[in-house]
């Protein structure tokens, strides 16, 4: 993703520079900074400078004031020699990191709001992206847009993940740091000396646990009893996946007749199974209201219940990017730094702030004043703080500074001299 003009790049860089004037007050200084590897991108260059070692918070501060980076990353890992080549760094351990990215969520809106854009004439369209602009043969670029629905889904996944971390894995909130990524997701850092030493295999097991990958419902209390062949299943109040399966099935039963879920059930259940449940939905919801009644309704086979439970597992699982968690050498964005694709802050948040976190308001750090006049090639509707903007198409608009930086970083608007 690139700026439309050099002037836009310099403008955004200037805004970043002003924000980073007092970096130590603003940027979250990583624990054991001297054992971390750092990397960054500067404005106008697409190559990451990495394998950097910084001895203290002052050195990190100087990086922001001297280089004015567009993105800054640090290793979730601790090394003996962070600046050495990878094979000689000497891995000590690594935070357990989770990344929830709207890109990985099965949200329907993604196809609607991600688009290609001609940087010459402003022609645009949904993916797939053509090689050149069909209208003027100009350079086209894919734009990933931020939408309220995607980020709300990402936040729901974050809440599910926190539930797994706290109630299942027993990780206390004092060991957990949460932050908005500054773009389309959330990051969770678990920093605990005991867990930091876990290898890739152990991290994969944790990923599988929270995503339900490889889960067999028969190990979680759902099975046919020998002899009577009646279906035995878990209760709502049971811990771990058992309770999640029971509660998940109850949620699904309630959604069976909801028109907005029809497509979902049709995709994930066979037509016969779906029909059998749908026909008896009212009775089942009533029966299940106080406690799960597995095997209720004789016309519904045990296999149907098991399929519904498997669907509940997928719904109850936390949708995380497994690669990030299992990579023990990963570089991840420094908390409370600006994201070069949006100008939004990768804002640290407290546990109690997650529910009410507004990614279009809380991480906006640039002031509204002075207003900036811009020519917008194209952008869908979006919101910054309480105000909505767009959709714009080849229009000159005057917007607050924060909105202007956002559109420049996204590469959809350029400074207008007119």
């Amino acid at each position, binding site marked *: 993703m690139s700026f439309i003009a050099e002037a836009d790049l310099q403008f955004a860089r200037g805004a970043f520079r002003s924000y980073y004037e007092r970096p130590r007050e603003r940027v979250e200084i990583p624990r054991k900074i001297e054992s971390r590897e750092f990397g960054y991108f500067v404005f106008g260059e697409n190559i990451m400078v990495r394998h950097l070692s910084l001895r203290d918070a002052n050195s990190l501060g100087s990086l922001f004031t001297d280089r004015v980076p567009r993105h800054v990353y640090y290793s979730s890992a601790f090394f003996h020699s962070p600046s050495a080549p990878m094979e000689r760094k000497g891995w000590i351990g690594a935070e357990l990191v989770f990344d929830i990215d709207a890109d990985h969520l099965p949200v329907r809106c993604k196809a609607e709001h991600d688009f290609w854009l001609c940087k010459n004439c402003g022609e645009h369209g949904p993916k797939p992206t053509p090689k050149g602009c069909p209208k003027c043969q100009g350079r086209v670029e894919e734009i990933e847009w931020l939408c309220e629905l995607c980020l709300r889904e990402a936040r729901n996944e974050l809440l599910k993940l926190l539930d797994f971390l706290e*109630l*299942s*894995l*027993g*990780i206390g909130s004092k060991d957990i740091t949460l932050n908005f990524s500054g773009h389309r997701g959330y990051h969770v850092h678990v920093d605990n000396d*005991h*867990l930091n030493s*876990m290898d890739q*295999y*152990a991290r994969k*097991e*944790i990923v*599988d*646990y929270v995503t*339900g*990958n*490889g*889960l*067999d419902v*028969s*190990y*979680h*209390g759902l*099975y046919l009893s*020998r002899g009577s062949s009646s279906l*035995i299943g*878990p209760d709502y109040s*049971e*811990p*771990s*996946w*058992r309770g999640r399966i029971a509660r998940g099935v109850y949620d699904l039963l309630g959604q069976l007749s909801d028109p907005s879920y029809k497509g979902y059930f049709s995709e994930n259940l066979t037509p016969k199974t779906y029909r059998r449940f749908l026909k008896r939905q009212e009775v089942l919801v009533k029966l299940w209201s106080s406690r799960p009644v597995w095997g209720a309704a004789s016309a519904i086979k045990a296999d149907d219940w098991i399929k519904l439970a498997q669907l509940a597992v997928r719904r109850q699982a936390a949708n995380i990017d497994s690669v990030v968690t299992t990579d023990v050498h990963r570089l991840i964005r420094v908390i409370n730094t600006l994201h070069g694709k949006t100008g939004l802050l990768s804002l640290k948040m407290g546990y109690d702030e997650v529910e009410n976190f507004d990614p279009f308001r809380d991480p906006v750090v640039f002031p509204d004043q002075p207003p900036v006049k811009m020519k917008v090639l194209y952008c869908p509707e979006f919101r910054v703080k309480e105000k909505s903007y767009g959709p714009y198409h080849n229009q000159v608009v005057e917007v607050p500074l924060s909105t202007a930086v956002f559109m420049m970083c996204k590469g959809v608007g350029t400074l207008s001299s007119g």
Partner: protein
Amino acid sequence: MMCTLPKLLESLIDPVPLIPSKAMLATSPSIYLARYPLLPMTRDYVGKRGLTINDLSSEQYAPVLRRAINRVELAIRYGFVNDRSRETEVEILSFPLAVFLVACISDPPISKRYAMAESERCSELLLDEPNQVVERLAEDSFGLKLKALRHVLGTHIYDFCLDFSDYIRLASHFSSPSWRLVNKNLCLGQVYLLKTEAVGILKLHAEENILRAINESGDVSSPQFLKQHLAGIRSIIAVREKEEERVTTRFSLEALPPCIRSIYNRLVEGESLPHFARFTLTSFFLNVGLTRREVLSLFSRLPDFDEHLSQYQIEHIAGERGGVKKYTSPSCRTLQTHGLCLRTQQCLSMRSPIKMYYRQVRLTERGEA
């Protein structure tokens, strides 16, 4: 290289400081030393005796030598060493000598077989110990923080719990889906375990430690007084190898023990089998010499047969995936726990379906001859 007994035993044991529990000492402590020779207190006990291998050539220690040879022979012949912990002195001293004998034989499959047999003995005994004793032994022998408890969930009663990060590390050696973290009851960082599972983990630890001790012994030269006995052990190995070759080349349906036959019949009838039954059948067939392809074709009878998944699972159990071990078939005790044991008169005092199968094959062959 001549190894003294204490030194050999020392290499067997993790250097965990021992604080014997009052309960253990109040009963007969030496019986624990005899039952679980990996305990640090056994090392101390042997160390105080200051014996060398050559000391054991004297008539005074003849029972120790006899028992050590007996341990190795039982392991080779039956894959199991019996418990004679009442003869504490003999039992305690014969273990490191048996390890020494196995090191002298210097045959990796035999070392493995011996380690498995001794750990099997420990695990059978552990299953009969009170949970608090298992908890104590786990900590004293392996530094493992198993917590004994009683936790009822659904129809299961869990006897132990273990921190999840420790659990992942230990369970990584097992490839059955039932050991995966995602299939465990995990609450507030603790994985709940049945006693059979907790003992399974300890058994694996014991096996690894014994094997490590044998391997770390390096090239040991056998003293004169052991040469004749080692020759005897080697001849047993040769006979067994021939026997195994003969048995595994002829798979016999008639020789299947009742439990395996029952699962097999359910499979043939196309009944959907629970996971543990599938695991039992797969590991059994793989261990009696069926190929992966033959096992796969058996499972193709299942109504929910998924070729890719079945192949994956079979390869896992065969130890060809995940860098882990080949699975032995569950013992009779484990099958009892999972309600799959159909013990009959025919089973006698057998401890595993595999042993029962080989016994039947031999009996049939003798009959035919």
